[in-house]
């Protein structure tokens, strides 16, 4: 099961060109939704103005070479290793979800576009990546949902309370969970069940990508930009008006404890 392409199986019911069109629409929704969000909220203008402010307050020049190395550092540390998270558990959960999602999406696109039917046998790696990616999203996501969300952990709200900030994670988990269950049910028989699950899977996925202007999805594009600006602020001395670190030895340890809702 883990090595068979669920979309190829599905091609007997739904033509590959329909599947491919659906994916194209989802990609369009991501790009369009993000752009709409940016334009509507004028967030690009804000970022640009903020960038100007940072440049104006510089106390040290940052050369092109240094800026490039900062960009690379941002991409590697903040982007690839989710370095901005100060809480190690949240960082790990995010990494699981992030790489899981990437693997899952890439595998979906490859399978639907390159190996759409049973006639084109799929190398085992792609379905494997699809399942593994999906499972990673579920592990990271459900862990976050029940145990790491700050409104649950620090504020004491029930994990079942739903607010708008949950739109992204709920639709993501619903989409991936339903997708995994659908693929499993499809491969073990039960045509009616499989069709129902497929329908639900498509609804959840459409909500995930369609709700981008209202959810936290687009933060995955804003965060790297913000991370880069933050590193630049440190490098050019402006630090957003923060004082520089004190020139003193680190000999007293720390008393910091994890927040809890008591």
């Amino acid at each position, binding site marked *: 099961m883990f090595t068979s392409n669920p979309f190829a199986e599905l091609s007997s019911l739904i033509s590959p060109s329909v599947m491919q069109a659906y994916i194209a629409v989802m990609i369009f929704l991501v790009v369009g939704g993000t752009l709409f969000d940016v334009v509507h909220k004028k967030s690009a203008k804000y970022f640009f103005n903020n960038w100007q402010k940072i440049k104006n307050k510089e106390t040290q020049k940052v050369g092109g070479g240094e800026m490039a190395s900062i960009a690379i550092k941002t991409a590697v540390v903040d982007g690839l290793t989710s370095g901005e998270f100060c809480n190690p558990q949240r960082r790990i959960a995010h990494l699981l979800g992030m790489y899981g999602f990437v693997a899952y999406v890439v595998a979906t696109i490859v399978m639907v576009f390159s190996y759409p039917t049973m006639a084109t046998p799929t190398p085992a790696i792609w379905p494997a990546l699809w399942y593994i990616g999906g499972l990673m999203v579920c592990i990271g996501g459900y862990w976050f949902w029940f145990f790491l969300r700050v409104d649950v952990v620090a*504020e004491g709200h029930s994990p079942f309370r739903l607010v708008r900030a949950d739109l992204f994670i709920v639709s993501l988990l619903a989409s991936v969970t339903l997708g995994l269950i659908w693929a499993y049910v499809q491969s073990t028989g039960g045509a009616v069940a499989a069709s129902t699950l497929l329908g639900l899977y498509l609804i959840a996925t459409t909500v995930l990508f369609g709700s981008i202007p209202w959810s936290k999805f687009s933060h995955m594009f804003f965060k790297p930009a913000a991370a880069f600006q933050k590193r630049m602020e440190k490098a050019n001395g402006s630090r*957003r008006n923060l004082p520089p*670190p004190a020139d003193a030895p680190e000999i*007293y340890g720390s008393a*910091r404890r994890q*927040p809890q809702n008591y």
Partner: protein
Amino acid sequence: MPTFVYMTSCDGCGHCVDICPSDIMHIDKTSRRAYNIEPNFCWECYSCVKACPQNAIDCRGYAEFAPMGHSVRALREEDKGTISWKIKFRNGTEKDFVSPIRTTPWGSIKSPSDYDVPGPEALISQELAHEPDALNIKGGLPALERKQLKKGFRKGL
């Protein structure tokens, strides 16, 4: 100067929610990040500012009497035992300060249980824990005598 949180810096860790003595730092329902829900109950104590690991919290003086364009930011470094401040006036004047905050490692205070158990005479006496030694005086704990008591008003006191 109520506090506010920078959107791009807050990662929703909850330290500010945990520490605020006024219970006014809470999580926004749209972005799952922190914000000040009741600036009119903010004392500007900076507990949240100091607790934020991302330095995502800043203050803007009370709109009722503080003109815009100022900045008072702090960097509390527990492991160095220091707090650093940068004050920027509306007219651009800047002032910087660094102060010590502790002289011993965090967590190093000796528990009262680690001291010798006081005897029953000590419990009846007027001396508190670690006394009279911790007073660092000769002659024991000072006291008054009942015969010194005088009831009521006396001129010239």
